[in-house]
């Protein structure tokens, strides 16, 4: 996972590219680099974030490419940072993705001097072989044909006032500006300069000049439609909060109102996600397979219960990288639902493609318009959470669950499994989720206090049942992602089958004691850990639980969506523990926002 950007135009390229890299840092930030292309090529690169680069005060260059790197091949070192060049330092390449056959290609280039351990470096050397100082596009086209794997690359070379970009399976979008042409992994990189964009397709090679972008595919010119981006990339700035994560936690009520807006009619018990799934497909549907990774996987687990209980359909949830189409299934009667915030998660795309190849219909649930998942799936529903920059997903989890809740009602009604009254009831509760989360946020001080009490614990355990179980897993994932502390989530009933041995006086237990989470049964588990001396923090809507809790965090009455509201307490708890421990909250070590490699 990396971020790349290129600019060629009439303005000085250095600030454009450096600023763009800042906005791509959510894609990875262990090293960064910029190549400025004027009469000669100047390369600036090092480990660390963009701000760590030693850049010239100013440069007259009007053409540049840049990269913010996430290590896949080779350690993050200065030499491994992009851009990479050929033997003479005339050609610069930035790359996002993996070149699978780089070792055999490297063997062919035995007479070339390599300076890094990266897969990328073969590309500039191959271009060196193919390029005679003339048509750079033709040289890149011939090299791209020889590469196996997934990639988005940008190439520039000494003496050419142009950038050649190529895409296969890694995202790449071009921007048509008044002061030049842009290309990047993601729109926010250049949205300050232009909102007119074209998404490149697999196999596209684009040639950017200051006033034009020409795209070919397989050597033939193609036309990629110009779209105008209307969303607000500057919302991606922190707005007075210390961290994006805290800002995004607080944005949940607003984001969820967007998720719900115009999609439900509580009076008549109808939800409408504009899916165009034909009724003759939905009625006899036998199985929904949800594929997802990380936080999205937990949203999928929440959705499994909702769909099975209210839409009367069998549901399996698979970790995307483990997904295979296995026996006993009729693909014609299977719907594969890919849940991915970025729409670019490689594992999830891979699973979705497997399902599609087997003949199943696919539905993408994503936050990113124009993403690969959205374009490849048969159907797409957007969660409308707005851009999420913090690496730890927060508002997108809530928006995924709410969207899948709407899907449950829509499918349940269409399958005649859900009465109007029950559907109305579910929709009214969904409508109340934003308000209930706001009330939870209003009690942040109590969570901060709990975090202060327990921040130095040896480990943290999260327990829940039914809808509370995925929330327990998600609570533990948040805490480990950003605080680097040992945290685990368990199904309440599983405690006595092993994990209870881990519980001591120094391991606080956080329990999801709400409706939808079998609170009376879970209370028995709370008593189990309490008798081992563990302090218990309860996110609770069960008044009788108070006397067993060291800290009680009240959850509003909201039926099966109470665990979703309780999750907001767990997000705040993770945030405050990480803050007290002085962690890099928005950029936890070893993690990137969306993982576009397998």
């Amino acid at each position, binding site marked *: 996972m990396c971020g790349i950007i290129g600019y060629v135009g009439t303005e000085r390229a250095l600030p454009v590219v450096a600023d763009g890299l800042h906005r791509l840092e959510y894609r990875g930030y262990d090293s960064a680099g910029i190549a400025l292309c004027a009469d000669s090529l100047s390369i600036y690169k090092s480990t660390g974030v963009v701000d760590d680069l030693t850049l010239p005060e100013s440069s007259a260059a009007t053409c540049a490419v840049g990269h913010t790197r996430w290590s896949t091949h080779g350690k993050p070192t200065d030499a491994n940072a992009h851009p990479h060049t050929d033997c003479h330092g005339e050609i610069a390449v930035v790359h996002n993705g993996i070149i699978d056959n780089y070792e055999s290609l490297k063997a062919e280039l035995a007479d070339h001097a390599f300076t890094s351990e990266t897969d990328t470096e073969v590309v500039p050397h191959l271009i060196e072989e193919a390029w005679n100082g003339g048509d750079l596009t033709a040289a890149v086209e011939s090299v791209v044909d020889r590469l196996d794997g997934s990639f988005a690359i940008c190439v520039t070379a000494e003496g050419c006032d142009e950038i050649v970009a190529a895409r296969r399976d890694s995202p790449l979008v071009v921007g048509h500006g008044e002061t030049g042409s842009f290309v990047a992994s993601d729109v926010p990189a250049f949205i300050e300069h232009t909102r007119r964009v074209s998404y490149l397709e697999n196999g596209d090679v684009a040639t950017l000049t200051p006033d034009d972008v020409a795209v070919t595919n397989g050597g033939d010119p193609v036309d990629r439609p110009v779209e105008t981006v209307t969303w*607000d990339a*500057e919302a991606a700035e922190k707005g*007075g909060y210390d961290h994006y994560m805290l800002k995004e936690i*607080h944005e949940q009520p607003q984001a969820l*109102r967007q998720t719900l807006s*115009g999609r439900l009619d509580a009076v008549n018990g109808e939800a409408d996600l504009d899916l165009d799934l034909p009724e003759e497909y939905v009625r006899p549907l036998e199985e929904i397979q949800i594929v997802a990774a990380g936080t999205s996987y937990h949203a999928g687990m929440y959705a499994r219960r909702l769909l099975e209980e209210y839409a009367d359909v069998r549901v399996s949830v698979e970790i995307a990288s483990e997904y295979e189409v296995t026996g006993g299934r009729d693909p014609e009667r299977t719907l594969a639902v890919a849940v991915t915030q970025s729409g670019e998660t490689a594992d999830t795309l891979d699973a979705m493609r497997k399902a599609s190849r087997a003949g199943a219909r696919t539905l993408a649930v994503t936050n990113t318009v124009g993403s690969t998942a959205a374009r490849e799936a048969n159907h797409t529903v957007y969660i409308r959470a707005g851009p999420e920059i913090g690496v730890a997903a927060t508002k997108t989890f809530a928006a995924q669950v709410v969207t899948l809740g709407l899907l449950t009602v829509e499918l349940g009604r269409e399958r005649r499994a859900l009465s109007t009254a029950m559907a109305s009831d579910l929709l009214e509760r969904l409508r*109340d989720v934003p*308000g209930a989360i706001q009330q939870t946020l209003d009690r*942040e001080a109590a969570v901060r206090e709990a975090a202060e009490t327990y921040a130095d614990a040896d480990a943290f355990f999260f327990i829940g049942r039914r809808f509370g179980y995925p929330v327990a897993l998600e609570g533990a994932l948040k805490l480990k992602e950003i605080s680097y502390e040992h945290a685990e989530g368990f199904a309440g009933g599983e405690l006595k089958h092993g994990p209870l041995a881990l519980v001591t006086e120094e391991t606080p237990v956080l329990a999801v004691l709400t409706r939808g989470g079998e609170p009376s049964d879970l209370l028995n588990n709370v008593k189990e850990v309490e008798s081992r001396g563990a302090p218990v923090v309860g996110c609770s809507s069960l008044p009788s639980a108070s006397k067993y809790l060291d800290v009680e965090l009240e959850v509003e009455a909201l039926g099966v969506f109470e665990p979703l509201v309780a999750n907001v307490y767990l997000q705040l708890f993770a945030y405050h523990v990480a803050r007290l421990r002085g962690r890099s909250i928005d950029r936890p070590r070893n993690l990137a926002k969306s993982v576009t490699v397998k």
Partner: protein
Amino acid sequence: MAAGEGRRLEPLTNRRPKPMIPVGNQPVLEYVVEAVADAGIDDIVLVVGYKRDRIQTYFGDGNDWGVDVSYAVQEKQLGTGHAVLQAEPHVDGAFVVLNGDRIIEPGVVEQVIDAPREAGDAVMAVTRSKRPGDYGVVTTDGDRATDIAEKPGPHGSASEIINAGVYGFDDSVFAAIRACDVGPDGELAITSALDRLISRATVRCVRYRGQWVDLTHLWDVVSVNASVLDWFGAGIAETATVESGAVVADAVDVGGDARIGANAALRPNVTLGDNVVVGSNAVLSNAVVFPGAVIDDGAVVRDAVVGEDARVGPNTTVVGGDADVVVDGTYHEGVTFGGVLGDYADVGGGVLVEPGTRLGDDAIVESGATLTGAISPETEVRRG
């Protein structure tokens, strides 16, 4: 300046700072930001404190208003002068200071910017008020202020000219504020600094003749709402649903995804927030309903404020009209105020809400009860 708590507006300020109280479907502070932006200022510092997350989440970096918004945090509410000091690291040269809870026209900001001044001069907008005793009463000589008396009361006013709360300063004001003593209430007021500056004859006044309203008391929410609907217009959001037979007056603003039931009547000066549901045959007039609230079938709500996600049960009546209200020991006679039902309050069916009632947030009221006076948050009210 948007850091204050606004205790006189409880229970509405228990969960949001005063500048975030919505009227005409946007927070009061948003009108201020818009006026400043319309006057051509594109760099805004919001001094925030109490419940600042609500303000930050709403305004973000200001991009939606075409301005750059940054935040200065006033951790403790130690007065308006102290608030201005918090902004010091963010400003350079001349700047304008306004209250976040007072809606003014952009013209006054332009007047303050354009006022002739010498280095070190402060500019203060002044205006005429029928109740000068509630504000800072200013005495002038030409365009110079010669005296300012803070809230002298109904009989102590030397003139009807009051401080409109819009100032033009430059960096020198920070030293003037620092030189002031903290008042007996423990607060450092901007008016003490003005006092000092007036004694040095360096405060110029510009006369503002436009409209302005501010939120001081709970009942102002209703009247300020009416004013903004009048000034800025009202309308029904595209995503709202109006069922057949419902009658909606012109001066009614309806938010997104709201639903107005069959045969409901919305009389003038009503604002319904996003996602509000109004049941069949309900009647509302001169009322502000915050987002997500539900007004059930047949309920009547007059001259009142209904908090966020609150529920007003079927056939519950908020009578409306005039009331005598005591707030913080001060007696207010004959104010038009049907009452306020706090955020997340759950009011059952057939409840009678007497004028002047203040029901706390998250309170639960049993069907058939009668409400009057001030009721604490999270109280459960049973039928007597």
